[in-house]
Protein backbone atom coordinates (compact mmCIF):
# COMPACT_ATOMS: atom_id res chain seq x y z
CA UNK A 1 0.00 0.00 0.00
CA UNK A 2 2.49 2.56 1.19
CA UNK A 3 4.94 1.58 -1.53
CA UNK A 4 2.37 2.36 -4.19
CA UNK A 5 1.49 5.75 -2.81
CA UNK A 6 5.08 6.81 -2.25
CA UNK A 7 6.40 5.93 -5.70
CA UNK A 8 4.87 8.90 -7.55
CA UNK A 9 6.34 11.29 -4.99
CA UNK A 10 9.76 9.73 -5.29
CA UNK A 11 9.53 9.87 -9.04
CA UNK A 12 8.44 13.48 -8.95
CA UNK A 13 11.14 14.55 -6.54
CA UNK A 14 14.32 14.59 -8.65
CA UNK A 15 12.87 17.19 -11.01
CA UNK A 16 13.37 20.40 -9.03
CA UNK A 17 15.96 21.45 -6.37
CA UNK A 18 15.86 17.98 -4.85
CA UNK A 19 19.48 16.75 -5.25
CA UNK A 20 20.80 18.88 -2.40
CA UNK A 21 18.04 17.99 0.03
CA UNK A 22 18.28 14.38 -0.96
CA UNK A 23 21.98 14.30 -0.28
CA UNK A 24 21.42 15.80 3.12
CA UNK A 25 18.72 13.29 3.82
CA UNK A 26 20.99 10.41 2.97
CA UNK A 27 23.60 11.76 5.37
CA UNK A 28 21.00 11.97 8.12
CA UNK A 29 19.53 8.54 7.52
CA UNK A 30 22.74 6.65 6.88
CA UNK A 31 24.85 5.29 9.66
CA UNK A 32 28.15 6.85 10.62
CA UNK A 33 30.55 3.99 9.90
CA UNK A 34 33.74 5.41 11.47
CA UNK A 35 31.85 5.95 14.72
CA UNK A 36 30.36 2.46 14.47
CA UNK A 37 33.88 1.06 14.12
CA UNK A 38 35.03 3.03 17.17
CA UNK A 39 32.11 1.71 19.24
CA UNK A 40 32.86 -1.82 18.04
CA UNK A 41 36.47 -1.50 19.20
CA UNK A 42 35.34 -0.11 22.55
CA UNK A 43 32.84 -2.92 23.03
CA UNK A 44 35.80 -5.32 22.81
CA UNK A 45 36.85 -4.08 26.26
CA UNK A 46 33.61 -5.65 27.52
CA UNK A 47 33.64 -8.79 25.39
CA UNK A 48 37.30 -9.82 25.75
CA UNK A 49 37.18 -10.41 29.53
CA UNK A 50 33.98 -12.42 29.02
CA UNK A 51 35.64 -14.47 26.29
CA UNK A 52 38.59 -14.97 28.62
CA UNK A 53 36.29 -16.28 31.36
CA UNK A 54 34.66 -18.76 29.01
CA UNK A 55 37.86 -20.17 27.49
CA UNK A 56 39.57 -20.43 30.87
CA UNK A 57 36.64 -22.43 32.21
CA UNK A 58 37.04 -24.89 29.33
CA UNK A 59 40.77 -25.55 29.73
CA UNK A 60 42.67 -28.16 31.68
CA UNK A 61 45.10 -26.79 34.30
CA UNK A 62 48.14 -27.44 32.06
CA UNK A 63 46.62 -25.33 29.26
CA UNK A 64 46.36 -22.28 31.48
CA UNK A 65 49.83 -20.92 30.64
CA UNK A 66 50.52 -18.52 27.80
CA UNK A 67 48.63 -15.27 27.38
CA UNK A 68 45.43 -17.02 28.42
CA UNK A 69 43.49 -15.82 25.39
CA UNK A 70 44.20 -18.84 23.19
CA UNK A 71 41.32 -21.16 22.41
CA UNK A 72 41.45 -24.39 24.41
CA UNK A 73 43.27 -27.20 22.55
CA UNK A 74 40.81 -29.67 24.02
CA UNK A 75 37.54 -28.81 25.74
CA UNK A 76 37.31 -29.86 29.38
CA UNK A 77 33.68 -29.88 30.38
CA UNK A 78 34.57 -31.87 33.50
CA UNK A 79 35.56 -28.52 35.07
CA UNK A 80 31.87 -27.80 35.24
CA UNK A 81 30.93 -31.11 36.79
CA UNK A 82 33.75 -30.76 39.35
CA UNK A 83 32.60 -27.24 40.23
CA UNK A 84 29.00 -28.44 40.30
CA UNK A 85 29.71 -30.97 43.06
CA UNK A 86 32.42 -29.03 44.92
CA UNK A 87 30.25 -25.94 45.39
CA UNK A 88 26.97 -27.87 45.65
CA UNK A 89 25.77 -25.66 42.81
CA UNK A 90 22.11 -26.81 42.70
CA UNK A 91 21.65 -25.85 46.34
CA UNK A 92 23.21 -22.39 45.94
CA UNK A 93 21.24 -21.82 42.76
CA UNK A 94 18.03 -22.73 44.57
CA UNK A 95 18.78 -20.40 47.51
CA UNK A 96 19.76 -17.52 45.23
CA UNK A 97 16.65 -18.02 43.11
CA UNK A 98 14.30 -18.18 46.08
CA UNK A 99 15.82 -15.09 47.68
CA UNK A 100 15.78 -13.12 44.43
CA UNK A 101 12.24 -14.04 43.37
CA UNK A 102 10.85 -13.49 46.87
CA UNK A 103 12.68 -10.15 47.18
CA UNK A 104 11.33 -8.96 43.83
CA UNK A 105 7.72 -10.02 44.53
CA UNK A 106 7.68 -8.69 48.07
CA UNK A 107 9.33 -5.42 47.05
CA UNK A 108 6.92 -4.71 44.20
CA UNK A 109 3.84 -5.67 46.23
CA UNK A 110 4.70 -3.67 49.35
CA UNK A 111 6.80 -0.74 48.18
CA UNK A 112 4.27 0.34 45.54
CA UNK A 113 1.53 0.33 48.18
CA UNK A 114 3.57 2.39 50.63
CA UNK A 115 4.44 4.85 47.88
CA UNK A 116 0.80 5.11 46.83
CA UNK A 117 -0.32 5.98 50.37
CA UNK A 118 2.46 8.55 50.64
CA UNK A 119 1.96 10.09 47.18
CA UNK A 120 -1.77 10.64 47.71
CA UNK A 121 -1.32 12.14 51.18
CA UNK A 122 1.75 14.31 50.74
CA UNK A 123 -0.21 17.26 52.14
CA UNK A 124 -0.50 15.52 55.50
CA UNK A 125 2.45 16.00 57.86
CA UNK A 126 2.61 12.30 58.81
CA UNK A 127 3.00 11.07 55.25
CA UNK A 128 5.29 13.89 54.22
CA UNK A 129 7.46 13.12 57.23
CA UNK A 130 7.45 9.45 56.32
CA UNK A 131 8.57 10.29 52.79
CA UNK A 132 11.57 12.25 54.02
CA UNK A 133 12.28 9.62 56.66
CA UNK A 134 12.65 6.96 53.98
CA UNK A 135 14.63 9.23 51.65
CA UNK A 136 17.01 10.19 54.46
CA UNK A 137 17.92 6.52 54.84
CA UNK A 138 19.44 6.67 51.35
CA UNK A 139 22.37 8.38 53.04
CA UNK A 140 22.91 5.48 55.46
CA UNK A 141 24.73 2.82 53.45
CA UNK A 142 24.63 -0.75 54.63
CA UNK A 143 28.29 -1.07 55.83
CA UNK A 144 27.49 1.55 58.47
CA UNK A 145 24.76 -0.52 60.10
CA UNK A 146 26.00 -4.01 59.29
CA UNK A 147 27.35 -4.79 62.78
CA UNK A 148 24.12 -4.01 64.68
CA UNK A 149 21.95 -5.48 61.89
CA UNK A 150 23.81 -8.76 62.11
CA UNK A 151 23.30 -8.93 65.87
CA UNK A 152 19.64 -8.06 65.54
CA UNK A 153 18.79 -10.50 62.76
CA UNK A 154 20.46 -13.29 64.75
CA UNK A 155 18.38 -12.28 67.77
CA UNK A 156 15.12 -12.20 65.77
CA UNK A 157 15.84 -15.53 64.05
CA UNK A 158 16.21 -13.77 60.68
CA UNK A 159 19.75 -15.00 59.97
CA UNK A 160 18.45 -17.11 57.06
CA UNK A 161 17.19 -16.67 53.46
CA UNK A 162 13.80 -15.46 54.74
CA UNK A 163 15.46 -12.67 56.68
CA UNK A 164 17.59 -11.92 53.65
CA UNK A 165 14.74 -11.26 51.22
CA UNK A 166 12.84 -9.39 53.90
CA UNK A 167 15.86 -7.10 54.31
CA UNK A 168 16.01 -6.46 50.54
CA UNK A 169 12.34 -5.44 50.52
CA UNK A 170 12.80 -3.19 53.57
CA UNK A 171 16.10 -1.59 52.51
CA UNK A 172 14.75 -1.05 49.02
CA UNK A 173 11.98 1.18 50.40
CA UNK A 174 14.14 4.32 50.41
CA UNK A 175 14.88 4.32 46.72
CA UNK A 176 11.68 2.66 45.53
CA UNK A 177 9.33 4.98 47.41
CA UNK A 178 11.21 7.82 45.74
CA UNK A 179 10.70 6.54 42.17
CA UNK A 180 7.16 5.21 42.73
CA UNK A 181 5.92 8.45 44.30
CA UNK A 182 7.22 10.50 41.39
CA UNK A 183 5.39 8.19 39.01
CA UNK A 184 2.14 8.03 41.00
CA UNK A 185 1.98 11.83 41.15
CA UNK A 186 1.76 11.85 37.36
CA UNK A 187 -1.36 9.63 37.44
CA UNK A 188 -4.44 11.88 37.46
CA UNK A 189 -6.58 11.57 40.60
CA UNK A 190 -9.87 11.45 38.64
CA UNK A 191 -9.51 7.73 38.00
CA UNK A 192 -9.50 6.96 41.71
CA UNK A 193 -12.29 9.42 42.43
CA UNK A 194 -14.43 7.60 39.89
CA UNK A 195 -13.62 4.27 41.50
CA UNK A 196 -14.41 5.60 44.99
CA UNK A 197 -17.70 7.04 43.67
CA UNK A 198 -18.55 3.55 42.48
CA UNK A 199 -18.11 2.39 46.04
CA UNK A 200 -14.64 0.87 45.81
CA UNK A 201 -12.52 1.03 48.94
CA UNK A 202 -9.06 2.62 48.91
CA UNK A 203 -7.61 -0.85 49.04
CA UNK A 204 -9.59 -2.06 46.02
CA UNK A 205 -8.83 1.15 44.15
CA UNK A 206 -5.14 0.58 44.68
CA UNK A 207 -5.27 -3.04 43.63
CA UNK A 208 -7.61 -2.73 40.68
CA UNK A 209 -6.93 0.79 39.36
CA UNK A 210 -3.51 2.03 40.45
CA UNK A 211 -1.40 -1.11 40.60
CA UNK A 212 -2.04 -2.05 36.94
CA UNK A 213 -1.09 1.49 35.92
CA UNK A 214 2.20 1.10 37.77
CA UNK A 215 3.34 -1.75 35.50
CA UNK A 216 6.24 0.16 33.88
CA UNK A 217 7.53 1.27 37.29
CA UNK A 218 7.01 -2.22 38.70
CA UNK A 219 9.22 -3.50 35.90
CA UNK A 220 11.92 -0.96 36.73
CA UNK A 221 11.84 -1.69 40.45
CA UNK A 222 11.70 -5.43 39.77
CA UNK A 223 14.75 -5.34 37.50
CA UNK A 224 16.84 -3.27 39.91
CA UNK A 225 15.83 -5.44 42.88
CA UNK A 226 16.58 -8.59 40.93
CA UNK A 227 20.09 -7.40 39.98
CA UNK A 228 20.75 -6.33 43.55
CA UNK A 229 19.48 -9.45 45.32
CA UNK A 230 21.11 -11.85 42.88
CA UNK A 231 24.56 -10.26 42.90
CA UNK A 232 24.77 -8.92 46.44
CA UNK A 233 27.63 -10.25 48.54
CA UNK A 234 27.99 -8.26 51.77
CA UNK A 235 24.44 -8.71 53.09
CA UNK A 236 24.35 -12.53 52.73
CA UNK A 237 27.95 -12.67 53.99
CA UNK A 238 27.04 -11.12 57.34
CA UNK A 239 23.42 -12.30 57.69
CA UNK A 240 23.41 -15.98 56.76
CA UNK A 241 24.64 -18.20 59.60
CA UNK A 242 24.00 -21.65 58.11
CA UNK A 243 26.58 -22.78 55.48
CA UNK A 244 23.85 -24.74 53.68
CA UNK A 245 21.97 -21.56 52.87
CA UNK A 246 24.79 -19.77 51.05
CA UNK A 247 23.88 -17.78 47.95
CA UNK A 248 25.85 -18.08 44.70
CA UNK A 249 28.26 -15.14 45.27
CA UNK A 250 28.90 -16.37 48.81
CA UNK A 251 29.70 -19.85 47.53
CA UNK A 252 32.30 -18.39 45.15
CA UNK A 253 33.89 -16.57 48.07
CA UNK A 254 34.14 -19.71 50.16
CA UNK A 255 35.29 -21.76 47.16
CA UNK A 256 37.97 -19.21 46.32
CA UNK A 257 39.43 -19.33 49.82
CA UNK A 258 39.45 -23.14 49.90
CA UNK A 259 40.61 -24.11 46.39
CA UNK A 260 42.45 -21.02 45.26
CA UNK A 261 44.88 -22.79 42.95
CA UNK A 262 42.44 -24.74 40.82
CA UNK A 263 41.71 -21.90 38.41
CA UNK A 264 40.00 -23.86 35.65
CA UNK A 265 37.43 -25.26 38.09
CA UNK A 266 37.07 -21.86 39.75
CA UNK A 267 36.29 -20.25 36.40
CA UNK A 268 33.77 -22.95 35.56
CA UNK A 269 32.13 -22.19 38.89
CA UNK A 270 32.13 -18.42 38.20
CA UNK A 271 30.60 -18.98 34.82
CA UNK A 272 27.83 -21.15 36.25
CA UNK A 273 27.09 -18.48 38.85
CA UNK A 274 27.00 -15.71 36.22
CA UNK A 275 25.09 -17.69 33.59
CA UNK A 276 21.48 -17.63 34.88
CA UNK A 277 21.15 -13.86 35.05
CA UNK A 278 23.26 -13.38 31.94
CA UNK A 279 20.92 -15.66 29.97
CA UNK A 280 17.85 -13.85 31.25
CA UNK A 281 19.49 -10.58 30.27
CA UNK A 282 20.31 -11.76 26.75
CA UNK A 283 16.66 -12.54 26.12
CA UNK A 284 15.15 -9.56 27.91
CA UNK A 285 17.89 -7.07 27.03
CA UNK A 286 15.77 -4.29 25.49
CA UNK A 287 13.25 -4.55 28.25
CA UNK A 288 15.88 -4.46 31.02
CA UNK A 289 17.62 -1.41 29.59
CA UNK A 290 14.43 0.57 29.04
CA UNK A 291 13.38 -0.36 32.57
CA UNK A 292 16.59 1.01 34.06
CA UNK A 293 16.35 4.16 31.92
CA UNK A 294 12.81 4.80 33.13
CA UNK A 295 14.03 4.67 36.71
CA UNK A 296 16.59 7.39 36.09
CA UNK A 297 14.22 9.81 34.37
CA UNK A 298 11.68 9.76 37.17
Amino acid at each position, binding site marked *: MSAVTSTPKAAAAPQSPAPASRRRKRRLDGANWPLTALVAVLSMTILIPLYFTVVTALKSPDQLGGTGFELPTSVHLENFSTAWTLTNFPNALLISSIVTVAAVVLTIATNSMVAYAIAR*NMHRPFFKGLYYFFIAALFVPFPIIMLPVTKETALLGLDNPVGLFLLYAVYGLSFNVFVYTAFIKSIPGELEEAAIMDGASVWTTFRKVIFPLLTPMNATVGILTCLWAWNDFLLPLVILSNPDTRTLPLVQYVFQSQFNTDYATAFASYLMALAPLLLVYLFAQRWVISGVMRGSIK
Partner: protein
Amino acid sequence: MASPTLSKTAPLRATASRRSHRTKVNRTFYWMVLPALVLFVVLHTVPTVTGMFFSLTNYAGYGEWSFVGLENYINLFQDDRVLSSYGFTFLFAVTTTIVVNVLSLFVAVLLNSKIKFQTAFRGIFFIPNVLSVLIVGYVFNYLLSNNLPLIGQALGIDWLSTSILANPDLAWLGIVGVTSWQSIAFSVIIYLAGLQTVPGELYEAASIDGASPWRQFRSITFPMISGFFTINMVLALKGFLQAFDQIVALTGGGPGTSTESVAMVIYRGGFQGGEYGYQMANSVVYLVVIVVLSLLQMRTLQRKEADF
Protein backbone atom coordinates in the same frame (compact mmCIF):
# COMPACT_ATOMS: atom_id res chain seq x y z
CA MET B 1 -8.09 18.91 57.42
CA ALA B 2 -9.75 20.05 54.25
CA SER B 3 -13.16 20.32 55.95
CA PRO B 4 -13.15 24.13 56.51
CA THR B 5 -12.95 24.73 52.79
CA LEU B 6 -15.48 22.03 52.12
CA SER B 7 -18.07 23.43 54.51
CA LYS B 8 -18.04 26.71 52.61
CA THR B 9 -19.01 25.07 49.36
CA ALA B 10 -21.03 22.00 50.32
CA PRO B 11 -24.25 21.81 52.33
CA LEU B 12 -23.81 20.88 55.98
CA ARG B 13 -25.18 17.37 55.70
CA ALA B 14 -22.82 16.50 52.89
CA THR B 15 -19.92 17.86 54.89
CA ALA B 16 -20.66 15.57 57.78
CA SER B 17 -20.90 12.46 55.64
CA ARG B 18 -17.87 13.39 53.62
CA ARG B 19 -15.84 14.00 56.72
CA SER B 20 -16.61 10.56 58.08
CA HIS B 21 -15.76 9.14 54.68
CA ARG B 22 -12.42 10.94 54.75
CA THR B 23 -11.38 9.55 58.13
CA LYS B 24 -12.20 6.05 56.92
CA VAL B 25 -10.04 6.62 53.87
CA ASN B 26 -7.26 7.83 56.06
CA ARG B 27 -7.27 4.70 58.12
CA THR B 28 -6.69 2.49 55.08
CA PHE B 29 -3.80 4.69 54.02
CA TYR B 30 -2.29 4.32 57.48
CA TRP B 31 -2.63 0.55 57.33
CA MET B 32 -0.87 0.62 53.99
CA VAL B 33 2.27 2.18 55.41
CA LEU B 34 2.26 0.88 58.98
CA PRO B 35 3.71 -2.64 58.50
CA ALA B 36 6.46 -1.28 56.27
CA LEU B 37 7.20 1.52 58.70
CA VAL B 38 7.46 -0.89 61.64
CA LEU B 39 9.79 -3.21 59.73
CA PHE B 40 11.89 -0.31 58.53
CA VAL B 41 12.24 1.07 62.05
CA VAL B 42 13.10 -2.37 63.45
CA LEU B 43 15.57 -3.32 60.74
CA HIS B 44 17.08 0.03 59.85
CA THR B 45 16.47 2.76 62.41
CA VAL B 46 16.96 0.62 65.52
CA PRO B 47 20.32 -0.74 64.28
CA THR B 48 21.43 2.78 63.39
CA VAL B 49 20.55 4.10 66.84
CA THR B 50 21.88 1.12 68.83
CA GLY B 51 25.03 1.28 66.72
CA MET B 52 25.49 4.94 67.67
CA PHE B 53 24.89 4.03 71.30
CA PHE B 54 27.52 1.27 71.28
CA SER B 55 30.03 3.62 69.66
CA LEU B 56 30.29 5.17 73.11
CA THR B 57 31.16 1.84 74.75
CA ASN B 58 34.02 -0.63 74.70
CA TYR B 59 31.71 -3.47 73.61
CA ALA B 60 33.64 -6.26 71.87
CA GLY B 61 30.59 -7.82 70.23
CA TYR B 62 30.11 -10.25 73.11
CA GLY B 63 30.29 -10.23 76.90
CA GLU B 64 30.48 -7.26 79.25
CA TRP B 65 30.78 -3.64 78.23
CA SER B 66 31.02 -0.24 79.84
CA PHE B 67 30.79 3.37 78.79
CA VAL B 68 33.98 4.96 77.55
CA GLY B 69 32.58 8.30 76.40
CA LEU B 70 34.29 9.66 73.31
CA GLU B 71 37.41 7.53 73.74
CA ASN B 72 36.67 5.46 70.61
CA TYR B 73 36.38 8.61 68.54
CA ILE B 74 39.63 10.02 69.88
CA ASN B 75 41.42 6.75 69.22
CA LEU B 76 40.09 6.63 65.66
CA PHE B 77 41.99 9.75 64.76
CA GLN B 78 45.22 8.25 66.05
CA ASP B 79 44.75 4.88 64.41
CA ASP B 80 47.02 4.61 61.36
CA ARG B 81 45.08 1.70 59.88
CA VAL B 82 41.80 3.62 60.07
CA LEU B 83 43.30 6.84 58.73
CA SER B 84 44.96 5.09 55.82
CA SER B 85 41.70 3.29 55.01
CA TYR B 86 40.01 6.69 54.71
CA GLY B 87 42.88 7.91 52.56
CA PHE B 88 42.61 4.94 50.24
CA THR B 89 38.80 5.08 50.10
CA PHE B 90 38.77 8.78 49.16
CA LEU B 91 41.51 8.39 46.58
CA PHE B 92 39.77 5.38 45.07
CA ALA B 93 36.24 6.84 45.16
CA VAL B 94 37.15 10.23 43.71
CA THR B 95 39.36 8.79 40.96
CA THR B 96 36.82 6.14 40.00
CA THR B 97 33.95 8.66 40.00
CA ILE B 98 35.84 10.89 37.58
CA VAL B 99 37.02 8.03 35.34
CA VAL B 100 33.57 6.44 35.22
CA ASN B 101 31.73 9.66 34.45
CA VAL B 102 34.12 10.89 31.76
CA LEU B 103 34.22 7.52 30.00
CA SER B 104 30.52 6.76 30.31
CA LEU B 105 29.54 10.20 29.03
CA PHE B 106 31.83 9.59 26.06
CA VAL B 107 30.40 6.13 25.41
CA ALA B 108 26.82 7.38 25.84
CA VAL B 109 27.32 10.17 23.29
CA LEU B 110 28.80 7.61 20.88
CA LEU B 111 25.94 5.20 21.44
CA ASN B 112 23.43 7.99 20.93
CA SER B 113 24.94 9.06 17.61
CA LYS B 114 23.97 7.63 14.25
CA ILE B 115 25.75 4.31 14.48
CA LYS B 116 24.76 0.94 13.10
CA PHE B 117 23.59 -1.83 15.47
CA GLN B 118 22.79 0.74 18.15
CA THR B 119 20.61 -1.60 20.23
CA ALA B 120 23.12 -4.44 20.10
CA PHE B 121 25.99 -2.21 21.23
CA ARG B 122 23.85 -0.71 23.98
CA GLY B 123 23.11 -4.25 25.10
CA ILE B 124 26.82 -5.15 25.17
CA PHE B 125 27.83 -2.11 27.20
CA PHE B 126 25.23 -2.92 29.83
CA ILE B 127 26.41 -6.52 30.36
CA PRO B 128 28.86 -5.76 33.23
CA ASN B 129 25.96 -4.40 35.26
CA VAL B 130 24.23 -7.79 35.41
CA LEU B 131 27.39 -9.52 36.67
CA SER B 132 28.32 -10.02 40.30
CA VAL B 133 30.96 -7.52 41.46
CA LEU B 134 32.69 -10.23 43.46
CA ILE B 135 32.99 -12.66 40.54
CA VAL B 136 34.11 -9.94 38.13
CA GLY B 137 36.76 -9.15 40.74
CA TYR B 138 37.94 -12.77 40.82
CA VAL B 139 38.16 -12.96 37.02
CA PHE B 140 40.17 -9.76 36.79
CA ASN B 141 42.29 -10.81 39.73
CA TYR B 142 43.45 -13.77 37.67
CA LEU B 143 43.86 -11.68 34.51
CA LEU B 144 45.84 -8.96 36.26
CA SER B 145 48.12 -11.30 38.19
CA ASN B 146 48.80 -13.91 35.48
CA ASN B 147 48.16 -12.59 32.00
CA LEU B 148 48.81 -8.87 32.16
CA PRO B 149 52.37 -9.38 33.53
CA LEU B 150 53.11 -11.67 30.58
CA ILE B 151 51.99 -8.95 28.19
CA GLY B 152 54.06 -6.44 30.16
CA GLN B 153 57.12 -8.66 29.92
CA ALA B 154 56.62 -9.18 26.21
CA LEU B 155 56.38 -5.44 25.65
CA GLY B 156 59.27 -4.76 28.03
CA ILE B 157 57.22 -2.44 30.25
CA ASP B 158 58.79 -2.63 33.67
CA TRP B 159 55.85 -1.75 35.95
CA LEU B 160 53.56 -4.07 34.03
CA SER B 161 55.87 -7.08 34.14
CA THR B 162 54.77 -8.05 37.65
CA SER B 163 51.23 -8.20 39.00
CA ILE B 164 50.02 -4.67 39.68
CA LEU B 165 47.77 -6.05 42.41
CA ALA B 166 50.86 -7.17 44.33
CA ASN B 167 52.46 -3.74 44.04
CA PRO B 168 51.55 -1.50 47.02
CA ASP B 169 51.80 1.64 44.85
CA LEU B 170 49.76 0.37 41.93
CA ALA B 171 47.22 -2.02 43.45
CA TRP B 172 44.69 0.78 43.93
CA LEU B 173 44.82 1.55 40.21
CA GLY B 174 43.90 -2.05 39.46
CA ILE B 175 40.86 -1.67 41.70
CA VAL B 176 39.96 1.63 40.02
CA GLY B 177 40.21 -0.04 36.61
CA VAL B 178 38.09 -3.07 37.42
CA THR B 179 35.46 -1.02 39.26
CA SER B 180 35.27 1.38 36.32
CA TRP B 181 34.94 -1.49 33.85
CA GLN B 182 31.86 -2.61 35.71
CA SER B 183 30.30 0.70 36.78
CA ILE B 184 30.45 2.40 33.40
CA ALA B 185 27.56 0.16 32.30
CA PHE B 186 25.04 1.73 34.64
CA SER B 187 26.23 5.32 34.14
CA VAL B 188 26.06 4.93 30.36
CA ILE B 189 22.40 3.95 30.60
CA ILE B 190 21.56 6.95 32.77
CA TYR B 191 23.40 9.29 30.40
CA LEU B 192 21.63 7.70 27.43
CA ALA B 193 18.31 8.33 29.14
CA GLY B 194 19.41 11.94 29.55
CA LEU B 195 20.59 12.31 25.97
CA GLN B 196 17.23 11.14 24.70
CA THR B 197 15.54 14.06 26.44
CA VAL B 198 17.54 16.57 24.36
CA PRO B 199 15.39 17.73 21.42
CA GLY B 200 17.03 17.04 18.05
CA GLU B 201 16.08 20.47 16.66
CA LEU B 202 18.68 22.09 18.90
CA TYR B 203 21.44 20.26 17.04
CA GLU B 204 19.96 21.06 13.66
CA ALA B 205 19.87 24.73 14.56
CA ALA B 206 23.42 24.56 15.86
CA SER B 207 24.82 22.83 12.80
CA ILE B 208 23.13 25.41 10.54
CA ASP B 209 24.94 28.04 12.61
CA GLY B 210 28.13 26.09 11.97
CA ALA B 211 28.86 24.95 15.53
CA SER B 212 31.51 22.22 15.78
CA PRO B 213 30.57 18.87 17.40
CA TRP B 214 32.63 19.73 20.48
CA ARG B 215 30.95 23.13 20.72
CA GLN B 216 27.55 21.46 20.36
CA PHE B 217 28.41 19.07 23.17
CA ARG B 218 29.61 21.88 25.44
CA SER B 219 26.81 24.34 24.74
CA ILE B 220 23.83 22.07 24.14
CA THR B 221 24.30 18.47 25.26
CA PHE B 222 26.07 18.98 28.54
CA PRO B 223 23.84 21.78 29.92
CA MET B 224 20.74 19.83 28.87
CA ILE B 225 21.78 16.66 30.69
CA SER B 226 23.39 18.30 33.71
CA GLY B 227 20.67 16.86 35.94
CA PHE B 228 21.72 13.38 34.88
CA PHE B 229 25.35 14.34 35.45
CA THR B 230 24.49 15.27 39.04
CA ILE B 231 22.62 11.99 39.62
CA ASN B 232 25.50 9.98 38.21
CA MET B 233 28.19 11.82 40.16
CA VAL B 234 26.33 11.54 43.48
CA LEU B 235 25.37 7.88 42.99
CA ALA B 236 28.86 6.95 41.83
CA LEU B 237 30.72 8.66 44.66
CA LYS B 238 28.35 7.28 47.27
CA GLY B 239 28.65 3.79 45.83
CA PHE B 240 32.43 3.85 45.57
CA LEU B 241 32.84 5.16 49.12
CA GLN B 242 31.21 1.87 50.23
CA ALA B 243 33.53 -0.34 48.16
CA PHE B 244 33.86 -3.81 49.58
CA ASP B 245 33.15 -6.71 47.17
CA GLN B 246 35.69 -5.82 44.48
CA ILE B 247 38.44 -5.25 47.05
CA VAL B 248 37.77 -8.60 48.72
CA ALA B 249 38.07 -10.24 45.31
CA LEU B 250 41.05 -8.29 43.95
CA THR B 251 43.49 -7.65 46.79
CA GLY B 252 41.82 -8.65 50.05
CA GLY B 253 42.96 -5.23 51.28
CA GLY B 254 46.60 -5.90 50.47
CA PRO B 255 49.46 -5.76 49.82
CA GLY B 256 49.70 -5.22 53.56
CA THR B 257 46.75 -3.00 54.33
CA SER B 258 47.37 -0.58 51.46
CA THR B 259 43.99 -1.12 49.77
CA GLU B 260 41.78 -1.61 52.80
CA SER B 261 38.57 0.37 52.40
CA VAL B 262 36.62 1.79 55.33
CA ALA B 263 33.85 -0.80 54.88
CA MET B 264 36.48 -3.52 55.02
CA VAL B 265 38.05 -2.19 58.23
CA ILE B 266 34.59 -2.06 59.82
CA TYR B 267 33.88 -5.62 58.70
CA ARG B 268 37.19 -7.06 59.85
CA GLY B 269 37.48 -5.14 63.09
CA GLY B 270 33.83 -5.57 63.99
CA PHE B 271 33.35 -9.24 63.14
CA GLN B 272 36.81 -10.71 63.53
CA GLY B 273 38.72 -8.30 65.75
CA GLY B 274 36.33 -7.89 68.69
CA GLU B 275 36.15 -4.14 68.05
CA TYR B 276 32.36 -3.77 67.89
CA GLY B 277 32.17 -0.52 69.83
CA TYR B 278 35.26 0.92 68.21
CA GLN B 279 34.13 0.08 64.68
CA MET B 280 30.70 1.55 65.39
CA ALA B 281 32.45 4.83 66.19
CA ASN B 282 34.21 4.40 62.86
CA SER B 283 30.82 3.80 61.19
CA VAL B 284 29.39 6.98 62.67
CA VAL B 285 32.32 9.03 61.39
CA TYR B 286 31.98 7.31 58.03
CA LEU B 287 28.26 8.15 57.94
CA VAL B 288 28.97 11.81 58.67
CA VAL B 289 31.60 11.85 55.92
CA ILE B 290 29.22 10.33 53.36
CA VAL B 291 26.34 12.67 54.25
CA VAL B 292 28.55 15.77 54.17
CA LEU B 293 30.21 14.80 50.88
CA SER B 294 26.90 13.94 49.20
CA LEU B 295 25.26 17.19 50.28
CA LEU B 296 28.29 19.26 49.25
CA GLN B 297 28.40 17.50 45.92
CA MET B 298 24.69 18.03 45.28
CA ARG B 299 24.91 21.71 46.16
CA THR B 300 27.91 22.49 43.98
CA LEU B 301 26.65 20.45 41.06
CA GLN B 302 23.11 21.75 41.22
CA ARG B 303 24.36 25.30 41.18
CA LYS B 304 26.01 24.51 37.87
CA GLU B 305 22.90 22.92 36.43
CA ALA B 306 21.01 24.78 33.75
CA ASP B 307 17.49 25.33 35.05
CA PHE B 308 16.68 21.68 35.53
